[in-house]
């Protein structure tokens, strides 16, 4: 009896299944557009230059074969959905996710992230601030990481002294230092600064991150103005600014 019930049930199941799509010579073809959902999650709203950053890529689709690219930086490893990346300089980074199929790559998702760098200090003046004095003692060029709470010493930098920067064709004088200290020649340029027509830039500023990797900081400009509030003696105001070329 039990065997008969099982046999009848199995037969009915087959019949019902067949009726789902095939009924004699009439059939139903089922069509559903594939839903693909992709999202990228980052730990913070910005990536930090001085450390390794990570993000996760989630794809909701039966085809989970994806390719992830990062412009402005390098993906150094990934495990499952987790990706780890590192940057050599600040700016904009773009994460892009493609789905791989026999038809090629299909763009699924793109996300723009800002890579920020630690602020630079030059002779005691922080980036985007001003001072009346240049502290010429000790390490004259370093970056400060708020994330790690430590100074990141500069290991080399170039100083460009440009006589007339209104013209691109004017070649600035390039002075190089392989330490965080300005050379005597650089010091001479600083002290004989003609603020009306000449500019000083610091470029190729290379510092060491806590993980031991070298990081390239953005070029900055040393701005010098005459302090008009002090009429008794000639004072200069020094400012370090990020320069957009």
């Amino acid at each position, binding site marked *: 009896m039990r065997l008969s019930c099982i046999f009848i049930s199995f037969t009915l199941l087959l019949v019902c299944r067949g009726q789902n799509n095939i009924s004699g010579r009439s*059939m*139903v073809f089922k*069509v*559903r557009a*594939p839903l693909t959902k992709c999202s990228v999650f980052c730990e913070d709203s910005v990536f930090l230059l001085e450390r390794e950053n990570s993000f996760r890529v989630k794809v909701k689709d039966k085809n989970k074969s994806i390719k992830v690219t990062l*412009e402005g930086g390098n993906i150094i490893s990934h495990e499952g959905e987790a990706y780890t990346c590192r940057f050599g300089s600040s700016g904009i980074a773009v994460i892009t996710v493609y789905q791989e199929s026999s038809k090629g790559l299909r763009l699924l998702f793109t996300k723009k992230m800002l890579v920020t760098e630690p602020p630079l200090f030059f002779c005691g003046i922080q980036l985007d601030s001003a001072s009346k004095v240049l502290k010429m003692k000790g390490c004259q060029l370093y970056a400060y990481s708020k994330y790690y709470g430590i100074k990141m010493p500069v290991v080399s930098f170039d100083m460009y002294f440009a006589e*007339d920067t209104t013209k*691109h064709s004017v070649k*600035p004088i390039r002075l190089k230092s392989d330490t965080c200290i300005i050379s005597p020649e650089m010091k001479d340029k600083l002290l004989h600064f003609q603020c009306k027509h000449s500019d000083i830039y610091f470029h190729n500023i290379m510092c060491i991150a806590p993980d031991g990797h070298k990081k390239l900081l953005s070029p900055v400009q040393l701005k010098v103005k005459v302090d008009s509030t002090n009429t008794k003696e000639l004072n200069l105001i020094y400012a370090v600014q990020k320069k*957009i070329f």
Partner: protein
Amino acid sequence: MNKYKINLNQEKLSEKEIVQQMDFDKFMSDYVAKPSWMLNGIKLYTLIGTTITAVAIAGFLIYKTSELNSDMVPLPFINPPLKSMDIPFESYQVNMDKDTTILFKTGSIIQVPANSFIDSNGNNVSGVVDMNYREFHDPIEIMLSGIPMNYDSAGTQYQFESAGMLEISAFQHNKPLRLKPGKQLSVNMVSAASGDNYNIYYLDTAQKCWNYILENTYENKTCQKIFDSVPPSKSYASEVSPEQNQMPQKPSKANPDAYDFALDYDKTEFPELTVYDGIKFEITPDDKVFNPELAKQTWDDVYIKRHPDNEHYIVTFSSEKISHSFAVLPVFEEKNYDEALKNYATKLAQYQTMLQKRKTRETTRGDSLYRIKAIFSGKVPQTNLNERFNNFVAGNFMAASPEKLVYRTLVISKMGFWNCDYPAAYFINTVSFNTAAFRIINRLKIDKIVPRYSASFSDKTGTPLILKTVFLFRDDFNGVYAINERAFARFPFDQEHVDKMVGITYDNKVVYLTKADFGSIKINSNSIHFQLQETSSEIKTAEQLKQLLKI
């Protein structure tokens, strides 16, 4: 020596003798006029004088005309002032069997369709073609090209201010080729001038003039920001051919002996399929590939189009890895036939429209993502300040300000010189006037009546220089004003509108004068003298000259 008989005391005639000789009739009848050499001489001198005067006047007029024009039109027509420093071509070998895209060093893109050229006899050219291409972007490159930059518009002479100029040519076996009628090359020229007030011109070397082609603006899409550019949108036009829009055949009644199928779909995903509600698709007896087992799987997409026989349809099911197409006939169940047939034609006509809407929506969605990706990617180099600083130091304006760069699109229908320029007055005056009617202060830029002098030149030591051409430069003007030696007698000069001057000597030396040295210029009422600086012999390239002159 001849002996002359001179009678100093001749006797006076008496009254009688005088009366005897007073027969004037006899005198006149006896007179025979002799040819007078004096009379002939007067006529000859008059003729010669008239001729000389006419020649002088004609010569003067011709001289004056050439003098007026010679400061605008260098001769010969395209005349590089220094052959050794002429802007070099980049050469490319292009296979005529396929479409080719050339990327020029400035980032410009040249698209060459297959089989574009014919030879001088009008024969089609196949195989490999040598294409030469070069661009001119700044005043030094324009000067060295020797290309005339004056433009005549309704009798008024203008100087071209340039957003970029190019020369393109094609050869096979060293013989020049021309474009086949109907064939066009497309050039997206990278330009650092992002203004919207330029036009496209073609240089007609036979007529010796620039011909206006069309405006070069954002509005007509011949100018667009490079970093706003989006990849070309995918077109679905090829999927809908006119024949597919023809009214369909009237559906038949279902054949109970044939295979047929209906569609199970989501109306939000495939809205165009609603027109097939109530319809079945009957597999044609000729279709041998149909397999009922295919109905067991769920498909990603379906597409229906007319069969070439105009009677059947082709239904294509596709998933990620496979696709199958069947020739079918739309049929109705016999019981619904009359009712269904009423709305069939109307509904089916909507299919293509609805399909197109869905495809457009999908394309737009995809394009938006690609557009966003392009914008993001464009920001990566923009925020790389170290790279930008390197370009700034190197003086490479093309890379230093990428956000300012634009593509200027030229559709090339003839080989030769093309430019994106703006006809402007080189010597300008800005004047204000108050129109009484509207009380509006208008400011107009008009041609200044520039003072003209008889010009002479010397080097710093005072040794006279014999120049063949002088070029004037203005810092705020991307062009040059060329003055041929024949116009030195009426040399236009106004310190307000000249920042630099370059002269080319007959022994091909470059001499120059910058604004800082304008104090050495000696001017009196009708003459001017320039003391020019000689360049060193090391200046041999356009780049070196730009460095020297800070242009």
